[in-house]
């Protein structure tokens, strides 16, 4: 683990998906959902509860992780044993389930707060980072490591992968110069385990899918 306070993968991605100044979400709700869904599955892979092989999720250990969000997903996976395709699970969790789980987890640790916006068409409830500093944390951490030429740990590599897959890189990696970019890509290629590589690939395909079907 890295020295800085690293949150669970999905929490880090959620914070990264929010503007550091205004706290506004940088992704469309659909894309954010796909990112949250993939990140929660990623957490289960990191917890060594599931494997992702050939587009399918295999449960290798059904013990709760101790974390409510990841465990909720694991429970659901256990309940619906006949559904195994990663893409189906990403699509399903992206319908709001994943975002909801992550928001609740972040709210419990007081990193996000409920925000109600009254608009023309009624109130819109959203969760925004309680401190603009926090939102920038994960991305800054990745940029700092890359800047120093150091190795990212596996969760941060997955995070970087999902940042690229959701298109967030246009916000958080645009300050990286060509050399840093090359280093990051190189690490992704060499060090991201095959299962997580596949998961991020599936996440990216799901994001593209949503654009083609006008859901993004």
């Amino acid at each position, binding site marked *: 683990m890295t020295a800085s306070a690293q949150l669970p993968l999905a929490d880090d991605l959620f914070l990264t998906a929010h503007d550091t100044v205004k706290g506004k979400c940088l992704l469309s709700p659909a894309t954010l959902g796909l990112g949250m869904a993939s990140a929660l599955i990623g957490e289960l892979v990191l917890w060594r509860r599931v494997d992702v092989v050939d587009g399918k999720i295999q449960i290798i250990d059904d013990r709760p992780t101790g974390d409510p969000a990841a465990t909720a997903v694991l429970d659901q996976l256990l309940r619906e044993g006949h559904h195994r395709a990663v893409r189906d699970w990403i699509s399903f969790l992206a319908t709001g389930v994943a975002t909801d789980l992550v928001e609740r987890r972040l709210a419990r640790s007081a990193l996000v707060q409920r925000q109600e916006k009254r608009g023309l068409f009624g109130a819109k409830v959203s969760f925004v980072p309680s401190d603009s500093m926090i939102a920038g944390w994960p991305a800054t951490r990745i940029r700092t490591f890359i800047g120093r030429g150091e190795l990212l740990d596996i969760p941060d590599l997955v995070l970087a992968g999902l940042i690229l*897959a959701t298109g967030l890189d246009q916000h958080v990696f645009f300050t990286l110069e060509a050399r840093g970019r090359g280093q990051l890509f190189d690490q992704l290629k060499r060090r991201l385990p095959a299962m997580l590589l596949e998961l991020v690939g599936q996440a990216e395909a799901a994001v593209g899918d949503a654009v083609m079907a006008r859901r993004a």
Partner: protein
Amino acid sequence: MSSTATKPPQSQLSTALARDRLGVAAVVFFVMSAAAPLTVVAGVVPTGIAVTELTSISIAFVAVAVVLAIFAVGYVAMARHIANAGAFYAYISQGLGRPVGVGASWVALLAYNMFQIAAYGGFGAIASPLFDKWFGLDIQWWVLALVVWALTAVLGVRDVAVNGKVLATLLVAEIIVVVVFSIADLFSPNFQASSAPIDVSSLAGAGSGALLAMAITGFVGFEQSVVFSEESRDPRRTVPRATYIAISLIAVLYGFAAWAMISAAGDDVIGRAGTEGPDLFFNVASDQLGGRAVDLGYALFLTSLIAAMISFHNIIARYMFSLGREGVLPRAFGRTVPGTGAPKNGSLIQSALGLTVIVIYAVAGWDPLVNLFFWGGSGGGIGVLLLITLTSFAVINYFVRNPAGEDFWHRLGAPVLGSLALVVMSYLALSNIATLFGVEEGSKPTWVVPLAFAVLLVAGIAWALILRSSNPQVYAGIGLGARSASSVGGFSAALASTDDKDNQ
């Protein structure tokens, strides 16, 4: 420990995913809105009659519908088996090889762009006299074309799709107008049931290719039904049904409307089409319906064109997005605006192209109705016809190699029959192109349009062959679109970065 206390008996995953699925009606609506009924009936048909001096258009709609329905049997069957359904080049890549697929994708971009830009010209040409009539404003056609161009460009780049309900309401209103006006035609004092529009022998006569090319223009958009293969309630039923329903509806509606209009136009329909243009459709019914109804019809005509523009613009932007993701077009096209998911760069390029063409036509003083709207639309129609023909062969070849899961009729029967008919249609359309455009045999437009398609096809094939040797990973993903895990988005591009230094 579970955070969800209750455990419902049925699968939450299945029900949640099923909730978003589309039914037959939704798919039919989507397809019909791209087909823009009033644009075809009031725009393409009268202009076509004037330019080609042919009137057997109703039977041409029916003939094209039959051929497309046969083609659709294999087309929707293959859609169930491949990723990225909805793009002709995906079928062609997997049926006839990736190089032809890339060539086809470039041809498709040109054809769709021709439609898109034709709609700008049509809008300008049709709206300009209306603004004079309604508001007493004398506005050049290109000013109005630029206004709708700007609207499309802004909505496109922000990816504001026209709300489904608005689109459906407009579409229903359009269909009602077409039906009511056509029925009014039947009671016109000039009405005399004409046999010319349904003269079967015309399909074998001189100019038959021009009629068929004109008719196919009315159906473009039907191919989009398969985009929803993975999103429909029952992939084996929803999409095929919606496709056949859309094709039949279009044929019956357009065929009937064209017949009624020609029958009610009196003896000299060609002459009237020449002088009145798109007004013909409204004029022949006006004495039965009165000015209010005609004004309403015109208003819907304009909104129909705008809806068609926005929908084609979206199709083009997504086509480029999909090609950009695959790495066939520059990667920048495979990017979206994160906050909205809009495929921004494809949209911008389309808008730039549209602006260029409008400006060229305005400066050169070319006729926006005939030279832009009709030539662009029917030229695009020929492009789509050629793509459908290639796709039909691709379907045969694909099922020869992967016969599992489909019966003989879906795999071979219908596709072979369809391919033969499509080859004949393509031949006729290309050989009648002078009649279609209403120009001299051998004059510039008759060879520029086919040549443009041929050049793009060959260039695409060449580009694919270059990719095969220089970038095998990109080559392997051709035709799979954004829907496959091997596509080239930001992450995949990162993984492929040593093979390819130019990603940004």
